[in-house]
């Protein structure tokens, strides 16, 4: 069964390709098929639920702004802008676990046109029995050896979709950092590492590989928990004509959490939207500013958010139609049986039952 899929190359990019480790997609497929192999006639309860990435990282809140905003001017230097995002979704529950899907997308903009490379969806049947095997096998295949999180307690089955998606995301980030030269690499989220799905060593390797090829990694967070005097840092926008950056200093983290980037608040357009922006700490200050200014010239920044990153998100997000299609796949190809388990909240409380998703 597994041998039916011959994966020879990863999708082509329109920039020079070094020797790319293709192990991950292959392992993804193998493990996906393996996990689905022994589920003949298992009933699945359909239950759509998106996993939102949350950043509950403990950062000591001694935040303050530096007095002067950094004014930005678009820098007329053509550069590739590339972005990565991944998505995961639970497509059903079985009696022994959950059926999940993950997908990732790389999008890049060069010569004013966007291109993408999308991987997945990969469907996994995750159970308490196989979750460790699936995760560690993927980790090994990806990154040669398990990283430090191996010593931590293993994630709950509910966290597995995000964990697997994070693995795929790190691999896609690695791909970009090793293939692009003199470009801008946009990550979704922060450069905070040391938590379960952001191993320090791996994140350092990704950033290092990017630097070696003269790339700059810019990580945009749509949401942040960082506050200044009780207000979110992205809500505190002093009067200044955009585009600008404000550097956030005074951030301290508890081990093993480590900030690999310096944190800024970025506002690129007149609209009152600002984002937390992490820029690789090892990059020289001037190069950081230059990178953001190149982004201003090379990228469309509606609502202060890079279009490339927006496209990466759009391309990997699962639509309801796709969820139905994957459920159809699970039934037709893997022998799952769909059951309609009653929602106990609705059953017990009628119109007052809010549904299981709220429990």
């Amino acid at each position, binding site marked *: 069964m597994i041998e039916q899929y011959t994966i020879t190359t990863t*999708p082509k990019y329109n920039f020079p390709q070094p020797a790319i480790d293709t192990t991950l997609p292959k392992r993804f497929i193998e493990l996906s098929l393996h996990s689905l192999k022994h589920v003949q006639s298992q009933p699945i309860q359909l239950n759509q639920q998106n996993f939102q990435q949350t950043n509950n990282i403990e950062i000591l809140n001694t935040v303050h702004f530096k007095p002067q905003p950094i004014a930005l001017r678009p820098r007329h230097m053509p550069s590739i802008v590339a972005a990565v995002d991944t998505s995961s979704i639970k497509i059903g529950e079985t009696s022994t676990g959950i059926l999940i899907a993950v997908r990732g997308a790389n999008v890049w903009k060069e010569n004013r046109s966007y291109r993408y*490379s999308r991987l997945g969806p990969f469907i996994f049947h995750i159970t308490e029995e196989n979750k460790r095997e699936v995760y560690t096998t993927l980790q090994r295949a990806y990154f040669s050896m398990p990283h430090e999180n191996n010593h931590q307690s293993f994630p709950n089955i509910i966290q597995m979709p995000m964990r697997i998606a994070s693995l795929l995301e790190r691999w896609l980030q690695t791909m970009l950092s090793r293939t692009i030269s003199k470009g801008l690499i946009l990550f979704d989220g922060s450069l905070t590492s040391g938590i379960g799905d952001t191993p320090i060593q791996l994140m350092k390797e990704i950033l290092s590989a990017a630097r070696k090829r003269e790339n700059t990694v810019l990580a945009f967070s749509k949401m942040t928990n960082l506050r200044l005097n009780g207000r979110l840092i992205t809500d505190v926008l002093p009067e200044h004509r955009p585009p600008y950056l404000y550097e956030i200093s005074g951030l301290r983290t508890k081990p093993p959490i480590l900030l690999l980037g310096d944190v800024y608040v970025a506002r690129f357009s007149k609209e009152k939207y600002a984002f937390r922006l992490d820029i690789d700490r090892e990059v020289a200050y001037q190069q950081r500013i230059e990178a953001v200014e190149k982004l201003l010239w090379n990228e469309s920044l509606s609502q202060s958010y890079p279009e490339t990153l927006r496209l990466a998100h759009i391309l990997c*997000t699962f639509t*309801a139609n*796709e*969820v139905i*299609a994957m459920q159809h796949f699970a039934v037709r190809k893997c022998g799952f049986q769909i059951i309609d388990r009653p929602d106990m909240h609705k059953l017990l409380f009628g119109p007052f039952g809010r549904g299981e998703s709220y429990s």
Partner: protein
Amino acid sequence: MKLYKKEGNVLQILSFPNETVEKGDYLLVEDAEARRGLVAQVIDVQFASVPGVLEELLRSLPDGGEVIQGEDFDPLDIASHITYIQDASLVICKIRATVENESLSPSSSWLPSRSQSTIKKLTIPTLLKLAKVDGKLPIVLGGTKDSSFLTIDASHLDGRLNIITGKKETGKSHLSKLLMANLVGYKATVVVFDLNGEYSGLGMTSDGKRSAHYDKVHVLTPSQNFKVALKQLNLHVLLGILIHALHLPGTSAREFRRIWQSLKERDKLTLHELGEVIPVWQCNQHVRDALFSRYHSLINSGFFTDNAAEAMLLEDCLFKAKEQGGAVVINLRNTSTIDRQIVVEYVLGRLVEMLTSWKLKATFLFAEEAHLYLRETYWDDIVTRMRHFGIFTTFITNQPDTIRENIYRQADNIFLFNFTNEHDLDVVSRAARVDAETVRSIARDLPPHHCLALGKVVQDFPMVVKVKALDIKTMGETRLFFNGTN
């Protein structure tokens, strides 16, 4: 296919891309447990309302309206399942009958099992067999979508009021010729009011040779080979012409009656004598003028003659047709409006006369664009009184609003060709034998030469048929300016 909803007599069925269903198809929703099934006809095929489709479409066009270029690495081939779900369709059907123990009843009051019912296509031959659409006088209308023939029974046209309608160049005349040829083949008497001279080739094959019906087709062209002498006319037929076609007032009609009686008593019923008498007739000057102007209209029509050898007896043709079957084609091409009305008044008057006196058994009348020559009062006459005499009319028109609503309501059979105009569809949808949605939905998408047969001929199971080709010489073609020029 899966049964999704039932609202009234409308079924909604979910269909997947590998199940091809089109408008007009029949489906059998069979509930094995209940031992019965619903016969439903597809009247519309829509996209199923699949959640997330809008996002899917938007995602494919994010780059300023251009499709974003890229590659998908989809090892599990989920894309094919996405396409499968996305292309699922919702089939809207009208319940036509319930089938139980191989017999049909018009009921739709029961609910088949949603989970257990099986849905399959019902082929036209199976449906025809179930509906018992057969008979001793078959007329093959043409082919259906499932490569079978749709055969109706000529007796379902007998004693019926029929309408053939559709927009220009969709095949109405072709179908009427097909029906005529078959009726003649079954020794029926057919009278055609041929507005454009299209039916004169009915007795010839497409290559100009004589067809099997050659001797049965009698083409009568008014003022050429079709003239009448006053002596052959009954007074009430001529009065009908004067009053209805030439709008002679009542007082003048009374005077004309007296003149007619006077000439008849003297055995001088000729046009010449009539022309001599009117100017000297003792009556009001206005009445005399009115009579004289109508007299000139009769003369100018060229339809009347004093020459007995010239006079062509309509009765002769009809009697011939009565014996062996035949079509009397009244060629109204190149005939003025007034003359056309005179001829039609004469023919209908004579027909009623002959039918009343049982000289004729019954006649199938084909009237093309009847509003151009049929007087107002005849419409009701045709659907009520004349039908009882044995005139069974088929109206052929591309302007459905020229036929009165009550005609549609009383029509027994409607052969509907393509219409795209909403107003036209509105008019036709008033027919009593079918619901408005079926007419609107199916007629709009009918290709040329395809017709939706409604009514008795198909036992009220509307069926789409591609009218079969006829080996008949095409006549009455539109004269074109650019034809043959480069």
